[in-house]
């Protein structure tokens, strides 16, 4: 991962790109986790 980085611009491009991808994963993950955490409550509300 570090072999292709030679300049600050490449470093920022690489790390920021990774952060955007992680942010996307986080938003999907936290919604899934929230639903997992509250499933019993959600089921009760549906009933």
């Amino acid at each position, binding site marked *: 991962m*570090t072999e292709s980085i030679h300049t600050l611009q490449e*470093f920022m491009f690489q*790390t920021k790109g*990774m*952060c955007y991808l*992680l942010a996307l994963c986080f938003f999907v993950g936290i919604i899934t986790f929230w639903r*997992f*955490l509250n499933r*019993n409550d959600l089921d009760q509300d549906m009933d």
Partner: protein
Amino acid sequence: MSEHSTAVERPLFSPFNVIASLIILFGLWLTYLRFTGGLAAVSNLDHNNPWGIWIGFDLLCGVALAAGGYTTAAAVEIFGMKKYHAAVRPAILTGFLGYSMVAFALLYDVGQPWRLPYPFIISPGVTSVMFEVGACVMLYLTVLFLEFSPVALEWIGARKLRRVIVRLTILLTIFGVLLSTLHQSSLGAMFLLVPSKLHPLWYSPYLPVFFFVSSIAAGLSMVIFEGTLAHRNFHDKMDKEHLEASRRVVLGFGRGASLVLAGYFAIKVFGIAIGNNWHYLATNYGLWFMVEMLGFVALPCFLFAIGVRERNATVIKWAAFGTILGIILNRLNVVLICFNWQLPAEARYFPNWKEIGISVFVVTVGIVLYRFIVTRMPVFYEHPDFKEKH
């Protein structure tokens, strides 16, 4: 509750009292050595390693684990979650004793402890992060003292003074949250000064955020853990409200801790990404980092979630215990284990057994004080003369 009997009916020579007495006697001997022979007589601290286990364990872990006070007070007084009201007094007491023990332990660590107030009265170093930490801890200790004082005032029957302080509850809670936010994060900010000494997997420009967020999880877990121990040992001191609220507190705080740990795990991964430190994960330190993150953050987070979903208080209590161990491990990693990681082993700090002895002494003093207070003052029950007045 046994109708608010404040008399102590426990045997004097119980196993706890005997062991605690021996530790305190031993600690007093170590204290004598420390204050007559100096730091070198009891510690392996030197100019290259000025911070050791007293800062790593007593101070950083103590402050993080005492965060239950501000998290519980904020939940109940600011966010209006009155269903957790029964947890406030025990949490404030734990916080107050935790911070008191931090200040007590600092007396051992600072070379000339009588100079502790110097930054505030003689030479204020207002541009230093340590000044901010010191000021916030001092002020927050005062706030915790005031927040806890209604309990002592009910005990001695000082009605008027109690009424005045109870009216200040919201103000004190807001002030406490503000100060905690500042110094919990500033404790992490202290390590921003040493990017070359702290291992890159633990160093991050976001260290203050890591410390603050993890302190919330530590505080919530500590309330659950302390409540569990209190239930086991001081069941007879609890009134109906506290006994009924116990399960509610465990489930509610477990849910909160689960979400906070999920967020903490995410921002720690962001920390690696921002520094592009992925390649360190394949090293021995990387394995150790993954033990901390997977074993003591992700696993407790998952256990909390399972426990909340299945309404299983036992799983939540184990998750809380795991989180507390994780926070202690994290703080020790930052201060000791992964600090000066590039130095050869012989040049690195390892605590003297007397340092560990003094830390055990400090913790024991805290536990004895906690026991003394909860067996006498209305912490786990409403005082019959002051019911419905707070």
